């Protein structure tokens, strides 16, 4: 089924078109949700809520950009909303002592690199992880992140710096990335 037909069917609330759209984009979107969620079950809940929004707002899609990008933005915002409902998020996002965070590296799986990278990201505290996801992967500016997460722009910037340094260290330890430890310590020290 072509994208146009899927869109038309979704506008007419046809279950077959909706399922086609879901089958085409749900694997990639579950990967997105997984980066924000604590576990797979949470990620699937986010995905479900996100796709319901996609179908309810499908009439707002103007076709000016890629459909996948449009869906992805809705999914990301859904994930953010779910995270923000969790009280731990507001505590986590204000953490300042990033160097004291203990990472259990035994949780990192030794499988394909994409999965490894994502699992490394998920090892980060939720506040760091969210800022990193939004800035490095989704491409939001710190100003937009500040608006989305209700934090200062400077807070977003510092959170990202710490998140990046921590992630680099994790990636190096897992031998996914090679870099002198000194640089990591310097990065952490600068922030």
């Amino acid at each position, binding site marked *: 089924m072509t994208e146009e037909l899927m869109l038309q069917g979704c506008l007419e609330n046809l*279950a077959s078109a909706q399922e086609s759209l879901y089958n085409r984009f*749900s694997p*990639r979107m579950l*990967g997105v949700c997984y980066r924000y969620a604590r576990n797979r079950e949470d990620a699937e809940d986010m995905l479900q809520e996100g796709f319901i929004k996609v179908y*309810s707002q499908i009439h707002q899609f103007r076709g000016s950009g890629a459909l996948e990008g449009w869906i992805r933005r809705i999914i990301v*915002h859904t994930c953010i909303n779910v995270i923000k409902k969790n009280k731990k998020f*507001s505590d986590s996002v204000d953490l300042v002592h990033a160097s004291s965070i203990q990472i259990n590296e035994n949780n990192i799986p030794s499988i394909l690199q*994409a999965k490894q990278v994502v699992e490394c*990201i998920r090892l980060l505290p939720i506040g760091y992880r969210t800022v990193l996801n939004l800035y490095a992967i989704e491409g939001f500016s710190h100003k937009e992140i500040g608006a989305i997460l209700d934090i200062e722009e400077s807070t977003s910037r510092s959170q990202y710096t710490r998140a990046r340094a921590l992630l*680099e260290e994790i990636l190096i330890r897992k031998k996914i990335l090679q870099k002198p430890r000194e640089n990591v310590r310097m990065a952490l020290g600068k922030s």
Partner: protein
Amino acid sequence: MERRFDMTNFEQSLKDQADQLDMIPSRRVWNGIYNNLHPGSRWPSIAMAFLFLFTILGIGHLNNTRKLAGINIQPQNQSEINSDLQNELNSSNEIQDESNSAKQDLQNKPGTYFKGNFTADNKKNQFLKDVNKDVNNKEKLSNPASGFSAKLIPLYPDKAADVIADNNADVLKSLAEKAPNNNAQSEKKITAIVAINSDKNSLNEIQKQSTQTKEDESSNFKTAENEKLVGNNISDFTTNNTTLKDLDQDKLVAISEPLITINEAASIQASTERNAEKAQINEAAKKKQKPVKKRNEKISWLFYITPSLTTATFLDNGKQPINSNSSSLIIRGNQNSSGMTYNSRFGFETGTEMSYAFWKKLQFITGLHFSYSGYNVVSNQVHPTFATLILKQEASGLPYSKGYMTHYGNGQSQNQISLSNYSLQLSIPVGLQQALFENEKIRVDIATTIEPSYVLKSNAFLISADERYYVKDPSLLRKINLSGHAGTFVTFKTPKFKWQLGPTVRYQLLSTYQKTYPVKEHLLDYGIRIGISK
């Protein structure tokens, strides 16, 4: 592997790696989405709930009606009975007059005749049927209410011949037996004049009298040759294997002499009628004494429709509604000139209402209402952009923001469009109605109800936190709500129906939105109710 993750472009490498991750969701995710998008399975349960409700109401209504109707026969009912009995008597008198008139006719007319046209044994049955019919008509004669026809009594002006047709072959047999006697000379004419008379008792009397008369006046029994030819072509009529054709093929034997005189017949008739009248009056009185299913005066049903004009009130910190003109209101923030602009819109409410008078002029009212109310939000189209709502966590009350994609601006620019915020609700009102004034033609009531309602369908565009955009989030809308309703009605009583007319106000007590949305919206409907009841 390491080379693929380029530290010089950390973000891009991270993005490339992360985006390669695909995961297959479990089937329950799609099932959850499907059930949310196609909630058709909810309707059967809702329909069953309403069916149950209507059944309960119906049973309650029927039970109340039967109880009250069986217990009381009011004095006014007795007067109704008397009135009905008087009507019955009048009817009887009319029938009596008709009867007398018929008798008069009989005396003036040269007589009616019975004409047969029989060809076989079936014709005998036909004849029997006709005789039976006459007997039935005779019974009608005895019943004043069922009418009286002079045509059923065939008589000569000064003679009354009577053949008692008592639906048995004996009569026919006797007729057949008489016929050969009277027609021994062949080619005799038979005139059968059948007098049909009142009820069975009178029939017996008439039989006795006719027997006596026959004995007394047997000499007057003449052959058909001396009488008028009344009927012919009685060809194949048979009785007890005796064919009239053999006796007289196309002529009837005339019973030329009356078996009873017309005065005697009239006397018997009058006596029978009087007895019948009495019996009927007694019967009618008995019927009236029986408990009759009667409409319960305490319960009444009203069907109505209320065209209404809907507006809304908003409650939020730092925001005050400001009237802009007669048909629109502006909700303006205290930060800048941006805000929410909307126009009132017409809606309606319709349904049925049951009222139960439990104390003098005070009535308990309940029923089932459908209401549609809403307003138009003034907006404008913008490029797709993100907007946020500030929401509250239900448990802790802490605020958090929620992001949306939207292309609806706050209407503060050109290319304005209208967005519809509406609510379709099903309500069950419970309340009281007090009669303020009442006479024979008009009644004035004041009523107030509380209406728990289920929101069947709704739509709402919410102003974003920065008041620049409208976003749509159905999950923030309540499904159960509560409204207050008040009105004053004037009821005009006509012979068949009661018409109700009056202003009503309906205020939605709970906000349209969930508690997580800090803005409280309360719909307010002003309407004119038009109702009809029996």
